[in-house]
């Protein structure tokens, strides 16, 4: 078994998914034998099973890559993230548990409780929409484990490459306004979310994930209780009917299918708040080093990063032709102040035009025109620098046990001539 073969089989996609469904499985689900199963064309998905094709189920672009089907995890690819505002069909899907099956907008309730509220209060969706002002922000959501696949020794979990990032336009009410309406005390330290998804084990007493944000983040203008995405109801896979959206933080802080917010007098201790989940060593460690749980610190702002979204890697251009390169850059809580690309593995860098973000925590667009000195194979490397002067590393940054925060430069391959 060559490594390549294992790798190519690990690349999951539509074909792989279809291969996973055996007819006996299908028959078991339908509760009947599929009599003419043996003459089905190979790409045919029986009607009764169509809803389990993730591309149809989640209305996703064909170039998304399936990492896992239990729970559903799909990642996007740089070349389909070229839109300035990420459309729903190109957005990565990250789940820790099972997506709720029945969501009733009319009876949905958000309860705010916890040690640091003056009184427990509940709101229907209609209450939220009618009582509070609405705000719309474009917010960058990146999975803490985006880029995990490059760490060595390998870190366990979904092996995200570059596509676990999006920047959609979210509309909702400010969490701050709702917390003010509820009334919080000066004991408030953290806000934890609870949601309607279910644990993979099926145990109803276990939450798959219940994370949140420190109170300073909860009170920011851009931290929303969102009920719409890109001007429409939030798609089910992305948190319908209500989602906490805290851009710039690991996307796991933005709880989907939100039904309860707990204002805590301690750092929230819900599922996947505990070490080592979404934590990195407080002090740098050598690759593979054991790190005690008490030495792991919660990730807050995501690091500076960028993605070349045009052209798609593998472009062949004629000699003497110039090439437009473009993409997005973001820096967690900070703004990106500089964007450069290199065609000689970092020996020289060319400055790109960089747009201001449409609002705080939105990704910024860059572009530049490249010319190549001679025929041959090139890689275009992209490097962003944040407002504090911190840049993306060209190599994989500090190893950590769970493989978070890989913000190494993105690169694409180009052939000239």
């Amino acid at each position, binding site marked *: *078994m060559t490594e390549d*073969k294992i790798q190519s089989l690990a690349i*999951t996609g539509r074909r792989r998914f279809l291969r996973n469904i055996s*007819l006996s499985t299908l028959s078991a689900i339908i509760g009947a034998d599929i009599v003419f199963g043996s003459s089905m064309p190979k790409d045919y998905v029986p009607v009764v099973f169509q809803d389990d094709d993730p591309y149809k189920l989640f209305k996703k672009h064909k170039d998304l890559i399936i990492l896992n089907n239990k729970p559903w995890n799909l990642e996007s690819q740089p070349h389909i993230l070229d839109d300035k505002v990420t459309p729903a069909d190109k957005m990565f899907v990250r789940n820790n548990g099972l997506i709720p099956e029945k969501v009733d907008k009319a009876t949905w309730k958000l309860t705010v409780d916890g040690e640091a509220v003056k009184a427990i209060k509940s709101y229907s969706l209609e209450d939220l929409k009618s009582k509070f002002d609405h705000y719309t922000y474009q917010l960058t959501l990146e999975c803490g484990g985006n880029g995990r696949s490059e760490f060595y020794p390998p870190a366990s979990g979904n092996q995200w490459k570059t596509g676990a990032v999006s920047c959609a336009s979210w509309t909702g009410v400010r969490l701050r306004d709702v917390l003010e309406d509820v009334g919080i005390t000066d004991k408030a330290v953290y806000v934890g979310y609870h949601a309607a998804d279910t644990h*993979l084990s099926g145990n109803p007493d276990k939450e798959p994930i219940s994370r949140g944000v420190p109170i300073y983040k909860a009170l920011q203008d851009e931290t929303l209780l969102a009920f719409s995405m890109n001007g429409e109801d939030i798609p089910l896979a992305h948190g319908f009917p209500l989602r906490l959206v805290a851009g710039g933080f690991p996307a796991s802080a933005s709880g989907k299918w939100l039904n309860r917010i707990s204002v805590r007098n301690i750092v929230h201790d819900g599922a996947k708040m505990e070490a080592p989940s979404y934590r990195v060593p407080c002090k740098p460690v050598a690759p593979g080093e054991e790190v005690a749980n008490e030495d792991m610190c919660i990730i807050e702002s995501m690091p500076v990063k960028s993605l070349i979204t045009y*052209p798609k890697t*593998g472009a062949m251009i004629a000699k003497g032709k110039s090439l437009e390169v473009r993409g997005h850059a973001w820096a967690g809580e900070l703004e990106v102040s500089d964007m450069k690309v290199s065609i000689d593995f970092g020996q020289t860098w060319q400055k790109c035009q960089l747009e201001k973000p449409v609002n705080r925590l939105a990704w910024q667009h860059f572009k530049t025109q490249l010319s190549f000195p001679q025929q041959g194979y090139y890689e275009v490397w992209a490097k962003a620098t944040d407002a504090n002067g911190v840049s993306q590393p060209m190599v994989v940054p500090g190893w950590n046990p769970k493989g978070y925060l890989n913000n190494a430069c993105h690169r694409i391959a180009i052939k000239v001539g």
Partner: protein
Amino acid sequence: MENDLIKSLKKLLGLMLGLSFLIVIMIGALVLVNINPDFIHKSKDTGSTDLAEVNVQEGDLVKDGIHMSTGLVAEEGYETVIANCTNCHAADLIIQNRGSKERWMALIDWMQETQGLWDLGSNEEIIVSYLSEYYAPIQRGRRPNLVDIEWYELKE
């Protein structure tokens, strides 16, 4: 009048007989296909890798050393892995990951402590040996070469 009615009834009877005959033939065909599924596509290329066909005939097909329906390397212990691991998560999650014996054991401990995985008993040794053999870490350096590039002409 009466004659017309009789004629109509006769027509109806004929139609019903015809229908019953068709149904009998269809049932016959179904039974035949059930007994010998090859009957309906004898003319098909036998080397075809039609996925649906493969699955219906051999649910546990192994091709090039890979168990087709899960994608796992079909070597000693893979059935035990399927039986104990794929209830909760897809085999995809295993295939993407790499680890030493210690790493896989630590992961099993974590799943037992937090994710509701049962005591694996003597199967643990089988599972850990399998995983650390076929899903061992691969050192690729601090930045690997770009691979699997699909080259295309860029048209503007």
